[in-house]
């Protein structure tokens, strides 16, 4: 239930503006990879190209290849919708559907796609997904209450449960803790550690300690100046990026001298 991602010579454009230039990266299956870098360096943009979510914005386009176990996401005839069914995403701010109960939120991926599912299978899927998101014990007595009644951290774990309920190969997380308090953040970080047993996880974070705590590998993105494209500067084991970076820019950033 987990696939690797290989990115080859990827350029991302908004209209004529080159936002991210020439990224090559290999992300292992069942690992946690963190993207770090200063604001506006294109790490979130790049993350969104991994499940074609950037196409929601008008004018966004991509050159190069993103291979999911060898299949190019941008190949001829590939449907972005089926890409997103295999590569899920969790967003910066928790966004449960306000019209749905907790249970329906978890089942949203199934129900919105009008797939037939028996009640027993649905119950099992809800329990499995909420257990997988470490949320089951907190909400099992109020599955029919609206999801927006939960706390921020619980809402974010509900969103993770919703993402894993569609059984994706990869889960992308775009600064999932930036809107949460420290205790909720800790719960999510613990969860990320468990998720990598089943999924390939890619996380964008502003918080270097968080990257150091949760990830196996870290990619550092940087930008030369406003109006210039973002670039992947260095990619390697998290331990070596933080303790022994090969690039001067990386060292400046992780030691807090810049950004």
């Amino acid at each position, binding site marked *: 239930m987990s696939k690797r991602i290989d990115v080859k010579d990827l350029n991302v454009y908004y209209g004529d503006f080159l936002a991210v230039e020439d990224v090559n990266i290999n992300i292992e299956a069942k690992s946690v990879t963190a993207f770090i870098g200063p604001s506006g360096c294109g790490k979130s943009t790049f993350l969104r190209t991994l499940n074609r979510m950037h196409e929601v914005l008008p004018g966004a386009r991509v050159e190069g290849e993103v291979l999911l176990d060898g299949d190019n*996401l941008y190949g001829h005839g590939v449907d972005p919708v089926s890409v997103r069914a295999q590569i899920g995403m969790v967003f910066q701010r928790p966004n449960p559907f306000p019209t749905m109960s907790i249970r329906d939120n978890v089942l949203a991926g199934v129900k919105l796609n009008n797939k037939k599912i028996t009640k027993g299978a649905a119950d099992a899927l809800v329990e499995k997904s909420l257990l997988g998101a470490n949320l089951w014990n907190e909400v099992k007595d109020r599955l029919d209450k609206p999801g927006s009644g939960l706390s921020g951290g619980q809402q974010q774990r509900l969103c993770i449960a919703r993402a894993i309920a569609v059984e994706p*190969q990869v889960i992308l997380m775009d600064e999932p803790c930036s809107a949460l308090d420290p205790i909720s953040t800790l719960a999510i970080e613990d969860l990320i550690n468990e998720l990598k047993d089943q999924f390939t996880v890619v996380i964008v974070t502003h918080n270097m300690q968080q990257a150091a705590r949760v990830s196996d590998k870290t990619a550092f993105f940087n930008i030369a100046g406003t109006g210039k494209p973002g670039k992947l500067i260095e990619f390697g084991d998290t331990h070596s990026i933080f303790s022994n970076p090969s690039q001067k820019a990386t060292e400046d950033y992780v030691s807090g001298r810049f950004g």
Partner: protein
Amino acid sequence: MTNTPLTTQGAGRTGDKVFSGAALAAGCLILAVLFGVALFLVVQALPALVAPPDKIQGGHGFFAYIGPIVVGTLIAAVIALVIATPIAIGVALFISHFAPRRLASGLGYVVDLLAAIPSVVYGAWGAAFLAKEIAPAYEWMASNLGWLPIFQGPASATGKTILTAGIVLSVMVLPIITSISREIFLQTPKLHEEAALALGATRWEMIRMAVFPFARPGVISAVMLGLGRALGETMAVALVLSSGALTASLIQSGNQTIAAEIALNFPEASGLKVNTLIAAGLVLFVITLGVNMVARWIITKHKEFSGAN
């Protein structure tokens, strides 16, 4: 599960295409309807425009027929605006800057109730209540202000005059002008208002220094939208006015508006008379379309301007 193909055909994509196509078609239908309104009015009006003059009501051709009632329409609309504009601005200011904040939204709702009352009820009220009550005032105007052509006697004993119709119209356009002006007054940048107050201005001076200059284009377009409504309103005039030939005096019976002329005559009309009335409707359509487009254009320009603030 592990080997789902990335390419899927059929059902899903078709749904997307059908749905976006339907949405696009609905949008185009609206443009088609507006175009159709113009087209069908022109087609059905054409016989009246090309008919020999003696066949048209009055015997002097279409333009001799439509001319006086266009003027009558304008007279009624101008009366309505002259009365409604100052009151509407006052009401809007009251709700936006004078009333206690907790009361303001409730009072706004009360004014919106004026817009909720059907026009035929206003017409009935104007005919049965207002005309009777206001007739003595017309007598007084005729005897004291009769030297002015617009108040020339003898005053109508029933009170069913163009001035009464204009007053009823003013009640109907009041909520339109009020609600738009209120929105614009509320959008005045707080910083400008506070700057004026910090200079020691009284509330009225603050309104003149900060609110009015900001709101002027918006209020102008609000008045123009009210004008569009007053030009096209039917019932208030059809029920209130006892119509007749074009006269300068506002307190005698006489004058007629396009909308009321159509409403009063269309149900019994046949043959060329139908085409004549549709042609009259076309004239009304063109006039209101022009007024509304100018008003919308001012609002759009104003939006761009206030967006920069």
